[in-house]
């Protein structure tokens, strides 16, 4: 049970470092660490699919978007920390720690007999309940809620079209290289230097 508190403490510590670190790139890196720790907490709760999504989507993709935002906004160092005071941040993090502590404490010890497998009777419980989170999600999503899945695909398609049409400026003629001409060039270019 020690590791739960260790992860919780580390989570709040990384959140504090996201807020009080002066370099915005460092705070993005601490944000990635926060996502990883929350994925570990979700793994402890047997929510493997959400933990994997946290690692794949948030760490793999959203963190890159945050890095792009940091690069694009061109935030100077010390511009943010000056008007938000550090004791205020520490107070907020202490409140966050207390709420997370009381909230997760009940969750951690809700299935206390199941989580600590000490007697063979409890191992028998595990053997009965051997269906994982991902199995359950796959069977229910693709057997019962297939139409919702297809609507999700349409929503992703709309998101892709919307992102392209927002950022791309359409132009009638675009200067592209002709791939065939590029590939069919002989290497006279190199023989020029010889």
């Amino acid at each position: 049970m020690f590791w739960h508190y260790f992860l919780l403490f580390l989570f709040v510590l990384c959140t504090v470092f996201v807020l009080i670190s002066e370099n915005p790139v460092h705070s993005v890196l601490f944000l990635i660490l926060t996502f990883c720790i929350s994925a570990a907490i979700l793994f402890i709760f047997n929510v493997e699919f959400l933990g994997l999504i946290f690692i794949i989507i948030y760490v793999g993709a959203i963190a890159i978007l945050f890095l792009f935002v940091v690069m694009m906004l061109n935030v100077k160092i010390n511009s943010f920390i000056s008007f938000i005071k550090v004791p205020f941040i520490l107070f907020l993090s202490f409140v966050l720690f207390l709420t997370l502590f009381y909230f997760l404490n009940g969750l951690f010890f809700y299935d206390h007999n199941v989580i600590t497998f000490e007697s063979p009777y409890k191992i028998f419980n595990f053997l009965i309940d051997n269906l994982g989170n991902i199995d359950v999600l796959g069977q229910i999503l693709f057997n019962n809620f297939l139409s919702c899945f297809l609507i999700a695909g349409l929503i992703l398609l709309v998101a892709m079209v919307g992102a392209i049409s927002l950022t791309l400026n359409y132009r009638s003629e675009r200067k592209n290289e002709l791939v065939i001409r590029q590939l069919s060039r002989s290497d006279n270019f190199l023989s020029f230097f010889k």
Partner: protein
Amino acid sequence: MILFYNELTKISCLFIFSLFLAVIILFLSFRLSTHNPDTEKLSAYECGFDPYEDARNVFDVRFYLVAILFIIFDLEAVYFYPWCVSFSLLNIEGFWGIIDFIIELIFGFIYAWEVGALEWE
């Protein structure tokens, strides 16, 4: 679930071992090496003079577009994962549903290709 816990215990042992190993290596390399800090050593190594401007440049929004397209395809890959795990327990509708999902994905990809969202001028 017992299988999962066994695997999780091994992976967490590996994580803790790597954490302690990284801390030990960092501490030893910080502790055993000699430190002679100097103003010339601590200044920026950039061709002899101080840099004029910040290292971060404002760049094109098209990088952002590539990242957003990456996120969308990543989310679609996330949907494939529970399908692959529970493939043997699905109906025939589940199979054709994922085929339809792939076709929607291919439509989006063809649109991005034809409009030229992935091309650089």
